[in-house]
C-alpha cells in the first residue's frame, strides 16, 4: 500500500453492451486504484467482467455497441474524456496491454522486429535504424536468445512462450507506467507459465512500472499480486491486500472461490482422494461433506492393463504424400488401473496423455502394445467386438461446447447410445434419460432443450450423463474440467467422485492441472515426450518426486498461498520440445527403477 498518488484511479466504471436494442451492463460501477510499482490482480470467473474492465480502460471496445461511463484517471487525466487521437497516443505508450492467446496475437505477415519497432516509431518518432537497435535491446531484456537475429523472423517460427515474450517486449517498448496483462499465461504450459510470471515480476522491478494482472487462477494471484480485487457479475465483490484476502476473506463469494481452489500440497497427509469442501457463494455456508473411504478395489485383477503401448502419427508431405516424419506421440507406455480407482496422467502439451487415452479406446489406432480390458485384448477385437467393448469404456472431452451436437436435443443425445446399441425401447430410453439427468444433478425436464441453452458446467454434466448411459466401468476424462470455471470445476469433480463411490467406476484422469489431480486421484503418472517418467501413489509422486522433470513440474505449479509471493524461481528459457522425429529414428529402450512401494521412476542421468 502506498500513500503516493496512484498511477491509475478508476471511479465508478460502468460498461454496457448493446444486445438486440437493449443496453446490458457488464461492469457495474466498480472503483479501484493502482499505485506506483504495485501489482494488482483482478480475479473472477467467466462473465465477471474482468476482461471488459481492462478493455474499457484501454478504450478498445467496439464503439458501435458499447458505452463506458465513470472516470478513469491516469496520472490525473480522465481517459474517458479524451478524443480518440489522444487516446491512441496513450495506448502502447503510457498504458500497454498483453493478451491471452500468444499464438494469434502477433501479425503473421509482419516481422517481429517491425512489430516491436512500430511502437517506438509511432510514439517516440524514432527512425528505422534507431528503432531496430532499441528493439534488439528490448528483446534481450525479455531474455529471448539470439535477439539480433530475430529481427527479420516471422511469428510462426516461435513457440507460445516465445511469442508471449515478444508480446511483452512490444508492450514495454515505450516504458509504460502501467501494464495490463489479460490472462497472459492461461494458454501456456505450467513450466512456461512459471517463466513468464518470473519475467513479469523481474521486469516490473527493472522498469518500475505497475501491473494490473487479470486471471482466474488463485495460485497465480498469490504469487504475483500485492493487492487483489475479486469480481463477480460485474461487481467488485472484495478488494484487499493479497495476504489478508487469502487469510481471512470477508465476502461469501470470496470464501466460496477460495474453497473451490485446490492447493498443491494440502493433501499431503491424506492418501485417498478428497471431495472439495464447497462453500455456497451466496450464503457462505459450507457444504456438508460425507465421510469418504477409498473406492479402489485393489485386491481384484486390474480392470485395465496397458503394456508397451506405442502410437505414432505419420506426417505426409510432397506431391505423392510420402511420409516425411513421424510424431512419436506415445512410446512404450505401461500402467494398470483397478475398478474404483483414479489414475491421473499429467504432463504438458505434446506429452502424449490425450493420445494415450484415445489409443486405449482405439479412437486412434496404436501401432503396437497390448491393452487388456476386463482381461480381453482390445487391439485384437474385430468391429463387433470393439463396439461391444466400447460400451464398457467411455470418454469425456475437454470442450463442453463442442461435445454435444448443436442440432440434437440433449435428451436425444443421451438416449442415442442406448437406442443405437439396442438395449431399450424408446419409452424405456426416456425413463433412463430422466434417471441419468437426475444422477448428474440436473432436472429431467431439461431433456427437450438444446445444448446452447446450457452453461459450460451443465454441458459437462450432460456429457457425463451420456457417457454413463451404457453403464461403463471405465471413464477416460480427457481434460474434462480444464475449460470450466474454478467453482464449477470443483462441483464437477465432486460429482465424478460421488459417481465413483456409487458405481465403482475407474477413471483415467488426463489433466495438466496438478492441483486438481492431487485432490481427485489415487495414483499419478507423469508423462514427457510420450513416455511415462514417473508413476506411483499420488502422495509419493507429488510429495516426493524423484525424476528431474517431475520435480521441475511440481515446482512450477503456482500455489494459492499468500506467503508464496516472494518466491523467485530464477529465469530460464526452456522450451517444451516436440516429439516429431525422422522416419529413421529408433527409440532408446528405457530402464525403470522402483523407489518405493508402487512408485516407479524412469532412469535418468545424473
Amino acid at each position, binding site marked *: 500500500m502506498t500513500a503516493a498518488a496512484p498511477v491509475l484511479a478508476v471511479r465508478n466504471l460502468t460498461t454496457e453492451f448493446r444486445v438486440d436494442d437493449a443496453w446490458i451492463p457488464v461492469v457495474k460501477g466498480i472503483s479501484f486504484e493502482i499505485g506506483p510499482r504495485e501489482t494488482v490482480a483482478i480475479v473472477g470467473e467467466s462473465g465477471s467482467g474482468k476482461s471488459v474492465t481492462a478493455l474499457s480502460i484501454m478504450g*478498445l471496445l467496439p464503439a458501435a455497441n458499447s458505452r463506458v461511463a465513470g472516470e478513469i484517471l491516469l496520472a490525473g487525466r480522465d481517459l474517458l474524456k479524451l478524443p480518440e487521437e489522444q487516446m491512441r497516443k496513450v495506448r502502447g505508450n503510457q498504458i500497454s496491454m498483453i493478451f491471452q492467446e500468444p499464438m494469434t496475437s*502477433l501479425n*503473421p505477415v509482419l516481422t517481429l522486429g517491425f512489430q516491436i519497432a512500430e511502437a517506438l516509431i509511432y*510514439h517516440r518518432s524514432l527512425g528505422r535504424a534507431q528503432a531496430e537497435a532499441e528493439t534488439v535491446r528490448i528483446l534481450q531484456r525479455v531474455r529471448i536468445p539470439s535477439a539480433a537475429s530475430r529481427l527479420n523472423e516471422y511469428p510462426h517460427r516461435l513457440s507460445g512462450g516465445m511469442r508471449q515474450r515478444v508480446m511483452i517486449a512490444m508492450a514495454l517498448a515505450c516504458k509504460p507506467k502501467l501494464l495490463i496483462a489479460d490472462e497472459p499465461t492461461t494458454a501456456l504450459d505450467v513450466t512456461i507459465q512459471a517463466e513468464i510470471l518470473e519475467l513479469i515480476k523481474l521486469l516490473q522491478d527493472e522498469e518500475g512500472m505497475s501491473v494490473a494482472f487479470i486471471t482466474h487462477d488463485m495460485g497465480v494471484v498469490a504469487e504475483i499480486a500485492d493487492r487483489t480485487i475479486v469480481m463477480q457479475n460485474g461487481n467488485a465483490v472484495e478488494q484487499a491486500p493479497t495476504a489478508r484476502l487469502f487469510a481471512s476473506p470477508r465476502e461469501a463469494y470470496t470464501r466460496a472461490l477460495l474453497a473451490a481452489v485446490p492447493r498443491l500440497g494440502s493433501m499431503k497427509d491424506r492418501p485417498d482422494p478428497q471431495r472439495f469442501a464447497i462453500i455456497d457463494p451466496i450464503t457462505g455456508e459450507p457444504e456438508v461433506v460425507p465421510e469418504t473411504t477409498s473406492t479402489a478395489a485393489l485386491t481384484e485383477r486390474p480392470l485395465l492393463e496397458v503394456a508397451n503401448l506405442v502410437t505414432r502419427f505419420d506426417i505426409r508431405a510432397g506431391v505423392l504424400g510420402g511420409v516425411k516424419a513421424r510424431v512419436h506421440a506415445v512410446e512404450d507406455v505401461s500402467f494398470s488401473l483397478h475398478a474404483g480407482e483414479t489414475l491421473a496422467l499429467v504432463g504438458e502439451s505434446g506429452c502424449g496423455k490425450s493420445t494415450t487415452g484415445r489409443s486405449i479406446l482405439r479412437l486412434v489406432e496404436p501401432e503396437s502394445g497390448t491393452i487388456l480390458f476386463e482381461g480381453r485384448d482390445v487391439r485384437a477385437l474385430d468391429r463387433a467386438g470393439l463396439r461391444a467393448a466400447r460400451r464398457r469404456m467411455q470418454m469425456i472431452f475437454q470442450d463442453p461446447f463442442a461435445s454435444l451436437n448443436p442440432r440434437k436435443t440433449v435428451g436425444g443425445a443421451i438416449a442415442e447410445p442406448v437406442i443405437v446399441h439396442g438395449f431399450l425401447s424408446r419409452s424405456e430410453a426416456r425413463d433412463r434419460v430422466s434417471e441419468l439427468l437426475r444422477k448428474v444433478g440436473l432436472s429431467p425436464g431439461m431433456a427437450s432443450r438444446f445444448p446452447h441453452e446450457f452453461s459450460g458446467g451443465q454441458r459437462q454434466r450432460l456429457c457425463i450423463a451420456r457417457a454413463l448411459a451404457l453403464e461403463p466401468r471405465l471413464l477416460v476424462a480427457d481434460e474434462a474440467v480444464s475449460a470450466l470455471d474454478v467453482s464449477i470445476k470443483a462441483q464437477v469433480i465432486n460429482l465424478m467422485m460421488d459417481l465413483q463411490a456409487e458405481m465403482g467406476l475407474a477413471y483415467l484422469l488426463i489433466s495438466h492441472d496438478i492441483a486438481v489431480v492431487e485432490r481427485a486421484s489415487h495414483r499419478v503418472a507423469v508423462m514427457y515426450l510420450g513416455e511415462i517418467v514417473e508413476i506411483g501413489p499420488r502422495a509419493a509422486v507429488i510429495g516426493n518426486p524423484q525424476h528431474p522433470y517431475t520435480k521441475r513440474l511440481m515446482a512450477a505449479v503456482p500455489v494459492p498461498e499468500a506467503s508464496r509471493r516472494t518466491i523467485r524461481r530464477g529465469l530460464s528459457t526452456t522450451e517444451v520440445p516436440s516429439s516429431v522425429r525422422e522416419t529413421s529414428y529408433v527409440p532408446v529402450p528405457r530402464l525403470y527403477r522402483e523407489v518405493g512401494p508402487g512408485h516407479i521412476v524412469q532412469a535418468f542421468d545424473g
Partner: protein
Amino acid sequence: MTAFVVRRLAFACVTLVAVLSLVFVLVRIVPGDPAQLILGDQASREAIDALRHRLGLDLPIGEQYAVFLAGALRGDWGVSMVTGQPVIGEVLRVLPWTIELTVLSLILGIVIGVPGGVYAAIHRNRVTDYAVRIASLLGLSFPPFVAAIILLLVFAIALPWFPVISARSGSLAAWYQSITLPAVSLGLISAAYVTRVTRSAMLEVLSEDYVRTARAKGVPWNAVIWRHALRNALIPIITVVGLYLGILIGNSVLTEIVFSRPGLGKLLIGALNQRDYPMLQGMMVIYTLIVVLVNLLTDLAYGFVDPRVKLK
C-alpha cells in the same frame, strides 16, 4: 524459394498432361461418328472413310492418344477443318485480343473492388456499407452479355460515343474507342466480385487478435487497416481472384460476341457451331494452358504475400 517454384512447375506439368488427356477423352465422347457428323447424312461411305483417315480417327485409340499428346506438347495442334490453316496459328492470332481484354478488366476490377471492399468493411453496417453490398450484389447478378448489351445500347446506339463494332485500327484513340466498352462491362462485374471478397476478408481479419494488438499498441487506424489488416486479407482475396479468372475468361467469350471483338471467344463459338474438331481440341489446350499459368501465378503470389508459405 527456387525449390518452391520448381515444385509448382512440376505440378503444373502434371496437371497439364492430365487435363490434355481429359480433353482427348471429351472430344471423343461425342455420340456418333465425328466424320459423319461433319459431312452430314448425305455423305458417301468413301468420303466418310477418307475424312476419318485424314483426321487420324482410324488409328487405334492408344496411337491416337500418343499422336495427340505429342503434337499438343510440340505445338502441332492440327489443322482447322474450316479454314485449313494450322490451329495454333489461328489461336495465336486472336490470343492477344482476349488477353488484353481479360487483363484490363481484371485490373479495373481490382482497382475499384479492393478499395471499395475495404471501405465497406470499415463502415460496416452503416449506409455506405449497405449501398456497396447491394451494388456489388447487383453487379455480379448481371449475365455478362446483358451488361454488354445494355452498355452497347446506351453508349454506342443511344449515345454514339463508341463504335458498335470494336476492332482497333492503329492509333491510341482508336484502341481506346474499341476497348473501353468491353473492358468496362467485364470490369464492373469483376469489381463486384472483388468488392465482396475484399469486404468479407477484411471483416474476418479485422476481428482477429493481432488487429486488437496493433490497436493496443497505439498504431494509427490507417496503418492498422492498410498495413496490418489488408496484407493478411490479401491471402483469401488472391485465392478468390485466382478462381474468378476462370469465370472471367468464360465471360469474355460472351462479351467478345456482343462487341464483335476478335478473340478466343469468337473462335470457340465458330468451332462449336461448325464442328471443327481440331480447332476445338486446340482451344481446350490453350484454355488449359491459361488455367495452369493462372494457378502458378496465384501460388507465386501467395509466396510473395504470406511468409509462412515461402519456406515450404
